[in-house]
């Protein structure tokens, strides 16, 4: 029973490509929010959702301290039984746009990170029609078999610097806002 609840729906990766302004966006999903909560904080924990709206002053203070732009005033956070935090946030880089889950403990230290959705943009359309054809009609429920449906891409190494910046911003958000709650 415990096991069932741990990763309720078998973790299947869903992948898809769509066009936006003449560019191809390649998106992959990894763990769900519930799965990431359990991976980062343990299956026994409880998560209380909390809606936090940053004030303009708070946004300014966080941006100044972290040297990272604060794009959104609304935070998607959960509080754990041990007064830790689980935050789902978006990191927007030059080439990538990702949904990130971050666990911050009661002392304001990063306990873990997990990428939930990864999107990468290509300069122009993917030429191989066969490659694109695989995405038509693929739902998240489809039993995606390893590498049969999941394409692997090898190319120049993309730096994860934007994640580092995003985590830094969230640590300052903890310092300025979350720890006082």
């Amino acid at each position: 029973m415990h096991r069932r609840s741990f990763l309720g729906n078998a973790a299947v990766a869903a992948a898809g490509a769509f066009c936006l302004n003449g560019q191809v966006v390649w998106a992959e999903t990894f763990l769900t929010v519930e799965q990431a909560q359990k991976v980062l904080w343990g299956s026994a924990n409880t998560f209380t959702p909390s809606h936090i709206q940053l004030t303009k002053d708070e946004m300014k203070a966080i941006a100044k301290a972290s040297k990272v732009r604060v794009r959104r005033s609304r935070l998607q956070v959960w509080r754990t039984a041990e007064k830790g935090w689980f935050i789902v946030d978006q990191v927007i880089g030059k080439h990538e746009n990702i949904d990130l889950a971050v666990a911050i403990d009661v002392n304001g230290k990063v306990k873990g990170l997990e990428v939930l959705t990864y999107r990468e943009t290509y300069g122009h359309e993917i030429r191989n029609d066969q490659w694109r054809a695989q995405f038509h009609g693929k739902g998240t429920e489809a039993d995606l078999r390893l590498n049969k449906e999941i394409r692997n891409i090898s190319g120049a190494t993309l730096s994860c610097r934007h994640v580092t910046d995003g985590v830094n911003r969230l640590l300052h958000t903890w310092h300025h806002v979350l720890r006082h709650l």
Partner: protein
Amino acid sequence: MKTLSRCKPALGTYVKLHLAQETDDDSLLQLSEAVFAEIERIEAIMSFHRSESELSRVNRDAFRQPVVLSSEMNELLSFCAELYDRSGGTFDVTVGGDMVKRGALPGQNGFAEPRGRWDAVRLEAGRIFFGQPVLLDLGGVAKGYAVDKAMAVLPPDCQAVLNAGGDLKMRPWRHRTVGVREPSGGALHHLDMQAAALATSSAEFHEQGHPVTNPKSGRPLEDARVISVFASSCMVADALTKCAFLQEDTHHLTMMYDAECVCLGSP
């Protein structure tokens, strides 16, 4: 068959892991934890960016006194020494000093001004000593090594793909394909896997110039190609992409390591 896909920032890039095995969700999750833990362990040894890493200790101390190496560092540096010889000096991990000078790697306090090349490095019986101050950077090979080590923690019946920002390894690998980004523009080129591992290098995404430094000039390359290498070891594939940029003819190297090299675009 249960499957699990995770992606975590590590090794300075995004590391994606796909697993499939006849097992339960908990076990698969534990396997993925073991893979990421091994990556973190190797990164903690090999990172240039961490002042407490073994690599930083070697860079700091090996000019003053011989430094005893961990088995992992000894294994990786022994391969670097072998490839230096076999490539006629084109594969040289002492380019760290050049990369610090141009700001591609962080400078560190308390380091002697780097002067030497790999010929100043003495590697013997698990110890390293520098005849002249040098700065080793394993950026061209350690990511592949980490992928090899992390794949090795998985049981044989577990299917897996581990992709550390383009340095990838999979099993099984036969009859599988992989997308490689074409130069400037990023359309995907379809390649059939030729071996268990594939590594790709190019200047795309790099804001501080080409990731490959020419050890003869100390300067980054200006080369628009995308170079991919297939090999049974991801460490070998990773390192040979650098040789392929620096050497016109890599035939003897790819023969020696039973590797396959694919170039997209022109220099």
